[in-house]
């Protein structure tokens, strides 16, 4: 068995320097996440959750400390190798969605598959499948500026899942959607986690949402203040509540 998990973080810190001001977003964080875990990260606003998530997603680099992703020290990788890892291993759902406004919903979901060199027909089929899964099968040819915030969030989720990544990082995936729909999203996450063994790390403010995960890490002022197993994750039911 692989003792070193998919994520290994030790003594990680992140200091932002802007116009002479220093903001310590993360200080001396260490933890491991094994393959197949479903982790919720909680904490008040400004506690450094998004910063941590960006580092885990190989989008940003720590000021000090080490991050080993699936056995590879991220520090030693080139820009293109990182791009490849982000493309194939990680599905990232941004807090701010970050969809491309001018292209259609379907094309947005197809985008990561394009960078992986998957043929167009297959891309279209896969993207359609995931968009149907998040209940947007009828909005394929809208541009992302023509749909609601909650719908944009679900497009972002579909895009995060498109490459069937081993590690799914979700920054407040249910922040903008109604609770019935949130339940649906959680059901999808649990299914991916239980049946397909995907590792999921999810940021959330809501204890109700966190309760669906198997482990809850709480951060405050850039430090981990608690890290607990959740022995009885609440199973979410697929209600088809999504329009």
């Amino acid at each position, binding site marked *: 068995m692989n003792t070193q998990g998919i994520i290994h973080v030790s003594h990680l810190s992140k200091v932002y320097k802007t116009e002479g001001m220093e903001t310590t977003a993360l200080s001396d964080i260490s933890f491991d996440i094994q393959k197949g875990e479903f982790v919720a990260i909680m904490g008040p606003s400004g506690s450094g959750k998004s910063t941590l998530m960006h580092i885990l997603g190989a989008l940003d680099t720590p000021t000090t400390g080490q991050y080993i992703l699936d056995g590879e020290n991220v520090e030693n990788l080139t*820009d293109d190798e990182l*791009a490849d890892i*982000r493309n194939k291993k990680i599905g990232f759902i*941004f807090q701010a969605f*970050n969809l*491309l406004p001018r292209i259609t919903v379907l094309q947005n979901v197809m985008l990561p598959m394009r960078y992986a060199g998957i043929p167009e027909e297959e891309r279209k089929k896969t993207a359609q499948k995931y968009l149907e899964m998040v209940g947007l099968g009828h909005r394929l040819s809208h541009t992302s500026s023509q749909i609601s915030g909650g719908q944009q969030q679900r497009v972002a989720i579909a895009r995060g899942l498109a490459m069937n990544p081993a590690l799914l990082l979700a920054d407040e995936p249910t922040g903008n959607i109604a609770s019935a729909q949130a339940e649906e999203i959680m059901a999808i996450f649990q299914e991916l986690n239980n049946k397909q063994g995907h590792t999921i790390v999810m940021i959330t403010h809501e204890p109700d949402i966190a309760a669906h995960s198997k482990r809850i890490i709480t951060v405050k002022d850039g430090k981990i203040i608690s890290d607990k197993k959740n022995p009885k994750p609440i199973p979410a039911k697929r209600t088809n509540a999504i329009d």
Partner: protein
Amino acid sequence: METLLESLKTLTLNKLRTGLAMLGIVIGIGSVIALVSLGQASQQAIQNQIQSLGANLLTVNPGSQTSGTIRGAAGGATTLTNADATAIQTSPSITTISAVSPEVQKRVQVTAGRNNSNIQIIGVTAAYEGVHKITLTEGRFINDVDNNSLSKVIVIGQQVEANLFPTQDPLGQNIRINGISFRVIGITASKGGTGFLNQDNIGYIPLTTAQQQILGQTYLNTISLEAKSQDVMTQAENEVGYLLLARHKLTSPAQADFTILSQQDIANTASATTGTFTSLLSGIAAISLLVGGIGIMNIMLVTVTERTREIGLRKALGAKKQVITMQFLTESILLTFSGGLIGIVIGIIASYIFSSLSGSIFVISFPSILLAFVVSAGIGVLFGWYPASRAASLQPIEALRYE
């Protein structure tokens, strides 16, 4: 292919900006095409004119080699005489000349009835007709009898006929030059040429009459020579040159008080002049192309800045540097290439309009069109490279945070 379609879509999204960005390239390529085209047309026109004047023609003018044109133009040189012309015709050392035409000329005011005109009068012998390939539509040319008897006869060009005799047949009519009446005995066929090269606004009179009664001079303005063939031109030039040096009691060619030019020399000078002119204008066009390229770079940099978030996102989703570079390069090449295409069309239309307005030949140079395509695409690569690589090296998270 997908990148191409995507770039096309992005460019059509902001049509005004795309159009303005292309304008520099359009103007640059368009003017290069038009100028090269016009340059070649005028070169060809000069060649045609020269050929029509006779490729075997040598011209001897008074005046030294170094300041020949200036002194010749001032009309001050009086070093060529009738005796020189006779010597060239009769000397045993001349083996390559088949005909000798001594000439004098002057611009004069002429009248016929109530009409008057300013024409070039050339005093000629019978040899002129063959040496200069004159053809007549009516009557006959000046002959030896005319020269021996100081006849007051004139052969006129089409332009002179049109100006002086718009309604009647000029044959047998009189033309007055300096108060002396000349009878029209022949009309030449049109030789073409415009402006100072107009070959039709000319009147030919006997050399003797011209020298003694119109000009009052004993020297010649020109001796035109016909070489036996185009291959002996250089030899002919040397033979005539050394004969005249000896006759003028000069010891080295550097002292020569005359100038010998072949039609080819004249053609080369004329071509060189238009060539210089064309390359000067092409240089200016090339600068405008450069400015156009900088315009493209500027627009591409703005585009990259505007789309920082988009670039960050694409990189976050796994786009490698090369993908981003290609995306922006495709856009800039598309810009310059279509600009070049429009420029080529405009250039061709412009040179067509110009040539039909000025009545000159219309020439399209395919190599220059091909070059224009390559150059415009090249400008896209050259000036798109920096913005594209700047886009490619953006850090994803910095780019995503960019507002």
